[in-house]
């Protein structure tokens, strides 16, 4: 595909070519109103076959889990089972209208109710709301609940949220958006939250702490009990960033560890497709003391003399709605199908395999790349992509991986590891794929030492060579036509 640039539909356009011939009108013709006519539309003129080939060719340039290994750390790019898509397209799910009366959508409400119950069971929570539309939206929701909880108790001086320096960047962003001040805590030499820093930070202005466990280094927080106890002892709440739940599902429950509120990323742990802007889903689970603050409506089940029924209801002290209607229902259906297929035992096995795969890769790669926190990891691990003395950096390794047919790992995150490559294979990859990835990474490390220019100039095999990312960020050209009109 090298240099095989696909022309745009404008470049393919031929004057007066068209895709369909309309039949001669069988009614009297009328002129279109002139005020609605434009001569400057500049639309491409193509046949149907031109259009089909063009977009098929574009679609083949896409890289996804369906086309190859995608070890994007922190994103849990696992396979999305196709049966979930078929289920989500069943007319009863796909064609339900959000304004239908509850009596007419009892099956869909039953699905939501069961999913609430299951997520509460998996996370160890007293209640769950399916409203939030993404992980970061779940964070924001949890923080609004945290504020509502303190305010309901008349405690108005809690303005700070503690966040470890290994946290996802969304944590401090959500914190600021919710009106709190984010206070970053340093990590210790083993990659844990520095316990001494937690001790110093805890006072009566702390509204809570946001913890990702396992953290973004892929490490289980070794002092998690002590951290939770310190924060709770000073009156703060514990927020869980559930992004890394794929290491824990079926094994450990954040609620049991003392977490008060946590979001789940259905597109990570529960295999719903990753957005590209959406739709996502980030349900939030809450402990007994926070349950009444959940956003609504949530689904409730009642059984009385008239029979059993499901209804939408607002929790007593709800922070209100955070999304229209019932959240992204299609994603809920897929996650429901996933949990239903795997069951308790299957979810646990998935987590175990995800952890096993990541440890296998760490051990296989630690000779070729530096692993700064080289201890048993969970579902992902972080190595440094810099090869000393060659000028080869994490970005170069990532670009070269494209030539080997692999999607690169997450680059330059977490921020506390310079030149970070964050690798998460997930449980859905088999050993031959992992071995092929190891072979590619080892080959790149060797190339970096023997012929660094080859790596620094990569990719060589892709339709587009290395992009000037600095220029791209500073001189935005958002449409093909803007390019030709640019000075």
């Amino acid at each position, binding site marked *: 595909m090298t240099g095989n640039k696909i022309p745009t539909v404008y470049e393919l356009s031929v004057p007066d070519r068209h895709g369909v011939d309309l039949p001669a009108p069988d009614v009297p013709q009328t002129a279109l109103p002139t005020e609605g006519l434009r001569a400057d539309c500049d639309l491409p003129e193509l046949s149907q076959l031109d259009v089909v080939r063009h977009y098929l060719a574009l679609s083949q340039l896409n890289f996804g889990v369906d086309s190859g290994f995608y070890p994007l750390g922190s994103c849990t790019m696992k396979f999305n089972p196709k049966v979930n898509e078929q289920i989500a397209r069943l007319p009863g799910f796909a064609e339900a209208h959000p304004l239908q009366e509850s009596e007419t959508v009892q099956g869909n409400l039953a699905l939501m109710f069961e999913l609430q119950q299951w997520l509460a069971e998996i996370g160890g929570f007293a209640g769950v709301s399916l409203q939030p539309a993404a992980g970061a939206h779940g964070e924001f929701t949890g923080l609004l609940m945290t504020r509502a909880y303190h305010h309901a108790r008349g405690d108005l001086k809690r303005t700070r949220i503690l966040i470890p320096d290994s946290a996802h960047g969304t944590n401090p962003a959500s914190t600021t958006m919710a009106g709190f001040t984010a206070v970053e805590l340093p990590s210790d030499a083993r990659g844990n939250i520095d316990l001494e820093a937690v001790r110093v930070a805890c006072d009566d202005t702390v509204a809570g702490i946001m913890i990702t466990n396992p953290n973004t280094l892929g490490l289980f927080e070794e002092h998690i009990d002590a951290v939770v106890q310190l924060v709770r002892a000073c009156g703060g709440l514990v927020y869980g960033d559930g992004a890394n739940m794929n290491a824990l599902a079926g094994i450990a429950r954040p609620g049991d560890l003392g977490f008060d509120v946590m979001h789940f990323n259905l597109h990570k742990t529960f295999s719903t497709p990753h957005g590209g802007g959406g739709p996502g889903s980030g349900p939030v689970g809450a402990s007994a003391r926070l349950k009444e603050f959940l956003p609504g409506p949530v689904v409730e089940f009642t059984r009385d003399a008239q029979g059993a029924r499901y209804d939408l209801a607002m929790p007593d002290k709800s922070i209100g709605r955070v999304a229209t209607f019932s959240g992204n229902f299609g994603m809920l259906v897929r996650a429901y199908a996933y949990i239903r297929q795997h069951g308790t035992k299957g979810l646990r096995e998935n987590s175990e395999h995800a952890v096993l795969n990541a440890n296998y890769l760490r051990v296989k790669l630690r000779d070729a790349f530096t692993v700064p926190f080289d201890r048993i990891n969970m579902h992902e691990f972080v190595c440094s992509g810099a090869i000393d003395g*060659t000028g080869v950096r994490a970005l170069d390794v990532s670009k070269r991986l494209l030539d080997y047919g692999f999607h690169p790992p997450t680059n330059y995150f977490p921020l506390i590891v310079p030149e970070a490559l964050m690798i998460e294979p997930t449980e859905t990859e088999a050993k031959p794929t992992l071995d092929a990835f190891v072979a590619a990474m080892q080959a790149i490390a060797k190339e970096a030492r023997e012929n660094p220019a080859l790596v*620094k*100039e990569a990719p060589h095999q892709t339709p587009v060579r290395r992009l000037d990312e600095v220029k791209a960020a500073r001189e935005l050209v958002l449409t093909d036509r803007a390019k030709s009109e640019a000075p």
Partner: protein
Amino acid sequence: MPRIGFFINPIAGMGGRVGLKGTDGVAAEAVRRGAEPMANARALEALRGFKRLLDNSPNPPAIEWLTASGTMGRKALQAAGFALVETVHTAPAESTAQDTKAAVEKFLTAGVDLILFCGGDGTARDICAIAGEAMPVLGIPAGVKMYSGVFGVTPAHTADILMRYLAGEIGLARVEIVDLDEDKYRGDEWAVRLYMSALTPFEPTYLQSAKALISSADEEAIKDDIAEQLREDIAAEPGTLFLLGPGSTVQAVGRALAIDKTLLGIDAVADSKVIGKDLAEQQILELLDRYPERKLVLSPIGAQGFLLGRGNQPLSPAVIRCIGADNIIVLSTPAKLARTPLLRFDTGDAALDADMISRKFLPVIVGYHRARLVKVAA
């Protein structure tokens, strides 16, 4: 074609090897104690690393070097294999600080895009005093003290920064030129003094703007974010005296308040208005008498993280005690903190230092509504 002025202070670092804590004014003593020149070796290490990076680069820029004779630059450039070298200053065998100044003046006259030098804080000071605050300056560490912001961590790191700067991957940021008073330092006293600011190629602060997307932010823009936080805090506390300390991070607070904050001095603000500039200790004490509510705004100096040094003469122990350790607000950009793992205190008052150290961590404002706990050196 980039033109780089290259200069080595050949005696830099000699004092450190023989326990002299600096070489300013004691080079002869260092030699008597058996010190051997090491600046040229450090410079060569950086130049060879840089040459290797150029050779590995798909489109290496051709570089025109301007330098001084012999061990003040030319020798190392030739040893590293650079060809386009012009000697603009010829120094005697026993070079002095005057040769540093003469070489830099000739770089400026001839026109260079950047000055690369090898030395310590003293060299950085001498060079920046002539080169001014607008000429990009980058240091290869070879001195005894390297607290100024222009140095790479190692010679190889300096080479990497230079390469990335020339490739357009990183930009410039304003950093501080600081130096210790070596006479005091030899008597086991710290006296960090801020002399001026300089422009240097700077590894950007990486920000995580989405789950897997990293972008770098302009260092000055981050200072403005921090300053906006302070502007709000100052507005929220009418009648409180805010003493703004030295340095470019605190200077940005002046920008946010639309006042002209001095770079090196301590200025006073109350109700968002200037009530004193470049204050001396006595003037500060008088203000403290008038304002029962007071805050002191500081930023750590240099990579060593000194928050209060004896270089800040007006901030005497009496002043700090009067303000109260709880009323010190610390500011820093995340990039500066990345080079500054520990905060250090040297107020000149052991009891006060012990109080600060006992806190173990101090919150540092690193952005708008963002703080970070930073460890205090024991």
